[in-house]
């Protein structure tokens, strides 16, 4: 690569240097306590997946350009140029394989957030034209779809008509509706591509008598997985703009871990603006509807032994541990915890866009081993997890290992337990 390219990449790095990143790059003692925290290292025993090593790849670039001693003696830190081919190759795998579960951060004595460092790595890879091409295609497709939403709207309305009928049968209310573009509604619900993420939410909102409207856009943000923050912002901004136009008070994100993280933790920093509405995850919403008696569920109605998987972006990275467990304990007659659980829970292995990326398919199925072992240990016949990404991975693992598990979303789990005419 030429010098000009190198300088351009150095600018990308420079723009990404912030205080948190400096702590992470300056403090790591390479003690490797993180090695057993990462399910990918744990299964593969390949140093490339050791969290400290993934971060070290960025640190080697940083030391060469920023450390007073590294600038003179780069070899002392194995300093590398930002356009070093071998380094970028390693960085690609180390970075795009990471599920962003941040379990390593939990165990690190300095709380080093490897995912944050790899976020910078993704920006560098993208700028070097080495971003993940599959995720890039998905990102661009998503942006294109957003630009020509009117084209998709008609198809969506057709589909929703059928769903509406189903909703009316299920709730026994002939006036039950699936509103879109309803100005002044209290809630904007952001679902995923797929009726299975719309239908149960519609039932819950209907039963709780909420004034809501369905977003035209899907919650998934491939730009975030790709690690191109400007594209990720563009994708998320469509939902933000829709919410502003409709003047809703609350945006509720469906069971999608990263979508909630983007909207609740990242968007305001990206856009440098304060959102004029509340961002809620559907788990939190359902939990409060049950608490307030707005929806009724039949206690102990799920008889089979069942377990709960904490999605990393719902648990460790967002703090919803008790809400889903409360629901599980009400509805399930035999709820069994996995070990470890809550903030120490193992990642399913499919996060960070891995389930959408055929390139890492074998890898994610292989590294899902710890999750499968955990589930087997509980002896559960069913599993609930409020994250589409986790469920896709669990479904694949289920088939691969022939576990005959029933994999449920938390919404479906709740709706099945509701005293609805359609459930009788």
């Amino acid at each position, binding site marked *: 690569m030429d010098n000009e390219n190198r300088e351009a990449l150095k600018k990308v790095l420079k723009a990404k240097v912030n205080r*948190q990143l400096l702590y992470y790059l300056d403090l790591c003692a390479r003690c490797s306590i993180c090695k057993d925290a990462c399910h990918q290292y744990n299964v593969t025993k390949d*140093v490339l997946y050791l969290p400290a090593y993934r971060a070290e790849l960025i640190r080697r670039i940083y030391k060469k350009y920023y450390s007073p001693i590294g600038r003179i003696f780069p070899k002392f830190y194995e300093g590398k140029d930002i356009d070093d081919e071998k380094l970028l190759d390693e960085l690609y795998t180390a970075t795009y394989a990471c599920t962003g579960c*941040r379990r390593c951060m939990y*165990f690190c004595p300095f*709380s*080093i957030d490897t995912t944050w460092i790899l976020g910078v790595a993704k920006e560098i890879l993208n700028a070097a034209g080495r971003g993940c091409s599959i995720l890039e295609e998905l990102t661009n497709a998503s942006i294109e779809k957003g630009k020509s939403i009117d084209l998709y709207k008609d198809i969506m309305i057709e589909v929703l008509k059928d769903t509406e009928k189903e909703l009316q049968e299920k709730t026994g209310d002939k006036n039950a509706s699936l509103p879109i573009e309803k100005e002044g509604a209290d809630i904007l619900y952001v679902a995923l591509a797929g009726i299975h993420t719309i239908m149960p939410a519609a039932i819950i909102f209907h039963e709780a008598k909420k004034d809501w409207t369905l977003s035209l856009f899907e919650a998934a943000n491939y730009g975030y997985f790709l690690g191109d923050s400007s594209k990720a912002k563009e994708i998320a901004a469509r939902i933000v703009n829709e919410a502003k136009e409709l003047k809703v008070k609350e945006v509720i994100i469906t069971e999608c871990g990263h979508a909630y993280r983007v909207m609740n933790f990242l968007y305001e920093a990206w856009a440098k603006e304060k959102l004029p509405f509340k961002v809620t995850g559907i788990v939190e919403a359902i939990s409060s509807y049950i608490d307030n008696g707005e929806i009724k569920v039949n206690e102990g109605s799920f008889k089979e032994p069942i377990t709960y998987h904490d999605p990393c972006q719902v648990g460790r990275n967002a703090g919803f*541990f008790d809400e889903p467990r409360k629901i599980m304990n009400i509805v399930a007659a035999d709820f069994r915890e996995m070990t470890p659980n809550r903030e120490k829970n193992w990642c399913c292995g499919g996060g960070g866009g891995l389930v959408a990326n055929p390139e890492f398919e074998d890898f994610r199925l292989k590294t899902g081993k710890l999750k499968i072992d955990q589930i087997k240990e509980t002896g559960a016949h069913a599993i609930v997890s409020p994250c589409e990404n986790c469920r896709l991975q669990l479904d694949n693992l289920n088939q691969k290992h022939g576990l005959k598990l029933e994999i449920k979303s938390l919404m479906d789990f709740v709706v099945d337990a509701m005293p609805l005419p359609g459930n009788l």
Partner: protein
Amino acid sequence: MDTFSFIVAGIMVYIAVAVFIGGVIYQITVWFRAPKSSVRLGLFPRPNTKTGRFFKVLKDSFIFPQSYSVDKATWIFAIVFHGALLVILLAHFRLVREFTPLVKLIGLEGMDTLSALGGKTLGIIIIFPVLFYLFRRFITPHKDLSVPEDYFLVIILISIIAFGDHLRFFADFHVADYREYVQSLLVFKPYYPEAIANSSARIVLSLHVMFVNILIIYFPFSKLMHIVGTFAANKVRSD
């Protein structure tokens, strides 16, 4: 003072202290001049109150209990190393001046016994974690993760400890002599008192001081800054 000792245990001490203080301030300035990302990178569960967060930062920085649950060996060696190091460092202040309150409590003789026993025990205990730090770097995956800096720091530490232990176990000069040397440094006229100057262990003291100088000169530019930065980084965890 012989020329070598005058350079490494005299002049170099001043340079080292100056570089150490200046370097640490420089490094902290670099951190605080960088813009803080407004993204809250905290992990859950996290304390809701400021006081809760404050104590969590202290707990995470001093005992990092999470690390124990995933890698007991490394945690135990880390606690032993840092604990021993802290006590040893504090004990070195006896070479500046006597700890009067403690003398009142256990008497001068008691002080000498405590210092001899405590110093010898810790001087031996601290060898084990440092050897662990060294030898683990020769096996995978640490080997692939390590950079020259890691070996350099461990070798410097081993040198300091080895020469320090030699002084503790074999040298024929004692606390009063050290105190005279330290006082001479404090008034910017470094010299070795006779007992040290005439001792064959003189060179050991010079080397001990020299390696400490090297360590603290390099400290601000190294991963050792984790001692300073851990509080700030662990605070991000609770944000």
